[in-house]
């Protein structure tokens, strides 16, 4: 059995990702007119909570069926986005676009929650015994888990390579909201040109840096690959 404390560390990382995503969502002030909320943040928030619930045996979230529904909707949304990107940019969108990895993440989550076999069947959330002592959860169709693992690892590595070039952007964001990436929040569709970042604190500017989003996705990819391998 993989020690529970190791799984708890990964669960904590997922909760940090969820917290960062929640702060980013709140910083976007969705209750105001023209607020811009990123679907990747919504996705990271939900996945962070769901994965933490799977990893930490003491953490109870939603029933597996509910998570399947949630991530099926996300997968459908990102599938639609990938299709649109593909029509606009061709196959290149699968490599440089942001939606393809999120589609894979969402699909992997659907698979994990749908294919899990928990030794101590309880109808609760997540893997149940994965981090506990009642036995190991496994997945139906392990070959699919292997395929998902390979794709997740591939996207993680690709993200890291791309993050290398975004590093300067992160530094610029740390330096202040006037940095190259500190003012990237998109203005509202009406075109008022209002740039909400100008009034934001340095901390919020850091959270707005693309490196943060990509970093969250890398953490998520590694953890998801780990979970799939542990349940082979």
């Amino acid at each position, binding site marked *: *059995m*993989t*020690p529970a404390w*190791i799984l708890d560390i990964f669960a904590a990382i997922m909760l940090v990702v969820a917290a960062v995503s929640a702060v980013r969502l709140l910083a976007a002030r*969705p209750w105001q*007119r*023209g*607020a*811009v*909320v*990123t*679907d*990747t943040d*919504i996705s990271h928030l939900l996945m962070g909570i769901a994965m933490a619930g799977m990893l930490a045996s003491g953490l109870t979230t939603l029933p597996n069926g509910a998570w399947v529904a949630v991530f099926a909707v996300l997968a459908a949304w990102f599938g639609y*986005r990938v299709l*649109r*990107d593909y029509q606009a940019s061709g196959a290149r969108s699968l490599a*440089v*676009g*942001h*939606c393809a990895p999120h589609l894979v993440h969402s699909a992997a989550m659907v698979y994990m929650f749908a294919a899990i076999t928990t030794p101590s069947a309880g109808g609760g959330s997540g893997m149940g015994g994965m981090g506990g002592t009642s036995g*190991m959860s496994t997945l139906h169709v*392990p*070959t699919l888990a*292997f395929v998902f*693992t*390979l794709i997740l*690892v*591939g996207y*993680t*590595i*690709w993200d*890291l*390579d*791309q*993050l*290398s*070039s*975004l*590093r*300067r*952007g992160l530094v610029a964001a740390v330096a202040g909201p006037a940095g*190259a*990436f500190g003012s*990237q929040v*998109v203005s*509202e*569709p*009406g075109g008022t040109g209002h740039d909400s970042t100008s009034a934001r604190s340095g901390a919020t500017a850091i959270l707005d840096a*693309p490196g943060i*989003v990509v970093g969250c996705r*890398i953490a998520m990819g*590694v953890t998801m*690959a*780990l979970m799939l*391998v*542990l349940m*082979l």
Partner: protein
Amino acid sequence: MTNVAVAGSRTAWRGRLGTEPVAARPSLDARRVLQLVLAAIWLLDGVLQYQAFMFTKGFNQMLAGTAGGNPAVIARPISWDATLIDHHMVLLNAIFATIQLLLGLGIAFRPTLRVALAASVLWSLGVWWLGEGLGGVLNGGASPLNGAPGAVIIYALLAVLLWPADRGVPAPFTAARAAGGHVARALWAVLWLSLAYFALTPDNRAPQGVNGMIAGMESGEPAWLQDLQKGAASLVAGQGLAASIVLAVALVLIAAGVYLPPRIARATLVLAIVVAAVIWVFAQALGGILATGATDVNSGPLLALLALAYWPPRAGLAAPVATPAVSEELAPSEGEA
């Protein structure tokens, strides 16, 4: 990244790909792509090392078992290492897994590329000795089918050949950019000729040698993979000598291929990739990953990756010589040592 724009009761969805800082991204060359694949394999290895099996006595016994048949000078440190791990199983295995995870992430992250590649060489050499018993090279257990000369030593070889440096002259293939054509070819020949030799050792050419090795990997695999392996095993049942000779001839051809004109070299490299794929699927059962308990992907994917590093570019397109302006690895702004 996609945005949801919430405006009162209106909700609009749109993308903002156009605002991504793509202009700052350095381009990928063939060597960088190969480095990323190596990084992915390290990352996968790290994840595999977190499996439940690695925290059991079974992992320790697997390590201790590699000492058998080796000279005392090799075997004694292996036994010492196995004992040490036995006493601190959870902590040490967690460290091992994390190191491999970090090696993968470090190679993928350009600023830490050199450090990670150098560390991967040291780690690979240590694991080759203390974890794989030198891949069975000295105890007669090595076979191209079971991962000889030790999958992990191929990681080290790849790290050296994909090192982000250039010798200032156009290289005939990617692997020659840092090490030079002569050294790179010699390393290739030594590796594949050694595999040919191992294919013909008495144990491996015994009538049921190849059959037994394939059949031994079936346990715990999914049905479709078991079926493939059963088919392969029955094909070579009692044909160990013939199968070994065919394999050895192919391996010698591959070894000689890099010394031949580019067109023939490409053909032998394709043969190398096919042989690596066949070995990985049929003899190594995809590294045994689906049966759980695998510590790495085994040698198949690494041999294929190595073959790609020797792929000669099209006529007139020698592997590029890096300059600070175009080499992402050497760019001072990336903060490498």
